[in-house]
């Protein structure tokens, strides 16, 4: 079944992070755009090698924090007017006293926004993915680091396979999407 669907990607397997990094730089230099990698742990420098620059998570965190703090503060101000507790002549809107909850909700808003953005932009959770069908795809192995050229409109299997083979990998694996039932 793994061979029957349309091609999804070609993987080249390397046994060390260093070889993966060199290969990633080389394949980028050859002009392949839709390049990604699969690694069992974060590999230092891979982000630069693949030229990944996605600032959505920090941006979402900043916005989430601002929204959380503002809504926390305004909630306390608003409810203080809606249900005024006039005790000991103290001001209704007591800014220092409202800072604690504003801070907590800032943290909560920031973390929820950052993690939600991380999951959504990674398209997770998902139950299945074509690479799980690839022979020997294993995140628990310490000597398997995968460089992938993902299929897109200009994708040519033979060209991608040749380019990856020239990098002298341990193996080349075709990943196919499952055919629609």
């Amino acid at each position, binding site marked *: 079944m793994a061979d029957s669907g349309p091609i999804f990607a070609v993987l080249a397997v390397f046994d060390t992070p260093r070889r993966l990094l060199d290969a990633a730089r080389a394949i980028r230099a050859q002009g392949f755009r839709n390049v990604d990698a699969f690694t069992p742990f974060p590999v230092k420098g891979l982000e630069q090698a693949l030229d990944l620059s996605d600032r959505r*998570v920090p941006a979402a965190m900043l916005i989430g924090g601002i929204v959380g703090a503002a809504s926390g503060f305004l909630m306390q101000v608003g409810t203080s007017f809606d249900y005024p507790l006039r005790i000991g002549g103290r001001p209704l809107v007591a800014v220092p006293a409202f800072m604690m909850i504003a801070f907590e909700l800032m943290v909560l808003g*920031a973390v929820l926004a950052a993690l939600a953005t*991380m999951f959504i932009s990674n398209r997770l959770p998902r139950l299945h993915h074509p690479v799980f069908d690839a022979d020997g795809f294993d995140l628990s192995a310490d000597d398997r680091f995968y460089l992938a050229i993902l299929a897109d409109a200009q994708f040519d299997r033979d060209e991608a396979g040749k380019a990856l083979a020239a990098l002298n990998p341990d193996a080349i694996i075709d990943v196919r999407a499952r055919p629609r039932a």
Partner: protein
Amino acid sequence: MTEDLKAADRVLRLPPRFPAPRAWWICFGFALSLLALFFISVGWLFGHGPGIWGNNIPVGWGFPIANYVWWLGIGHAGTLISAMLLLLGQDWRNSLNRFAEAMTLFAVSCAGLYPILHLGRPWLFYWMAPYFNTMNVWPQFKSPLTWDFFAVLTYLIVSVLFWYIGIIPDLAAARDRAAKMRWKIFFGLGALGWRGQATHWARWQQAYRLTAAIAVPLVVSVHSEISLLFAAGPVPGWVSTVFPPYFVLGAAFSGFAMVSMLTVWLRWMLDLHALVTPRHLDMLGCLLLSTGMMTAYGYAAEMFSAAYAGGKEAETLFDRFGGPYAWSYWGAIFFNFIPLQLLWWRRLRVTPIVLFLIGCSATAGMWMERYMLLVSSLYRDWLESSTGYFHATFWDWGLFLGTIGLFLTLFLLFVRFLPVISAFEVREEAADG
């Protein structure tokens, strides 16, 4: 394959091939018996109300609030070990952070139950939350009790999420490593389809490090707010600006004591000697010693400010030294700071049993400190009519031991079914080195 890689690989295989089933079952049986005590105590409480406890006016906050502060303080060490040391680039934390964070979750769960059970009408706990209601009332946002509700809730949510996104890559590796289908499905569902894609790692690292960065000030804010439950009230022995930092340091101290105990225990039970080395025990001993000495400084500062203020503050201080609850004051001093001094010697720091016993001593000492702070400030006012001694009842102790059972049960389930050490971070470090 280096030693570290072998050890990391073993961690991923621990749940399917658990190395110490007998020791685990003995511990689990013990934990379950305490958990039964928890359910009995809570059931009796629901049937008869908080009158079954020793707290009564003037000591309205007996065991429930003391234990709440104690549990929450223990929880903070997990976040500090994990988040602070991650940001400081201390790679040795990788052997400790996963189970320290799990400890945080379970300790905070025990802590969170206490104020709810203390309410008298616990089924109305949601009145603490601001929501549109037919009574047209809102919470009192100038009260530390309301701050606390938000602080603990935020802390619980952030701790759960931080722990969970940290464990996802290991669940994915354990899924690929597992041989049996039921373990594949179990880890596979937990891993949420993680496949280690470079683009995913990049966003994951941003999210993980940023959450860590915000979790450290969160810990400080949460325990400062706990201290304001006391410090914001005009009660001699409580109303002190020393309290927030003093509480945060004491919390870290008691938590590191608990982490030390759990480390020694897990290292022995699961044979984790390759990952939890004498160096880790040494570092834990240093952390325990330094936070302990900072806590001692907090004691000195509190004593000084009470003596300097004079009047009723000083009276409360001297009552703590020589009054009916002096045992809790001197007990706290003794158990917190006397055995601790052994940790100045490296040979003792790296001896597991010594570290374990000092951890026990410090958790007991910090418990006495919370008891002392609560009871000695409340039991006697400056009117004869408002004097009343606090005596813990069977149900006070029953619920306290019961929460220990709840903690141990959850922790043992975690140990049995999930990777207890952050294997992918150990592997990452091994690849760098």
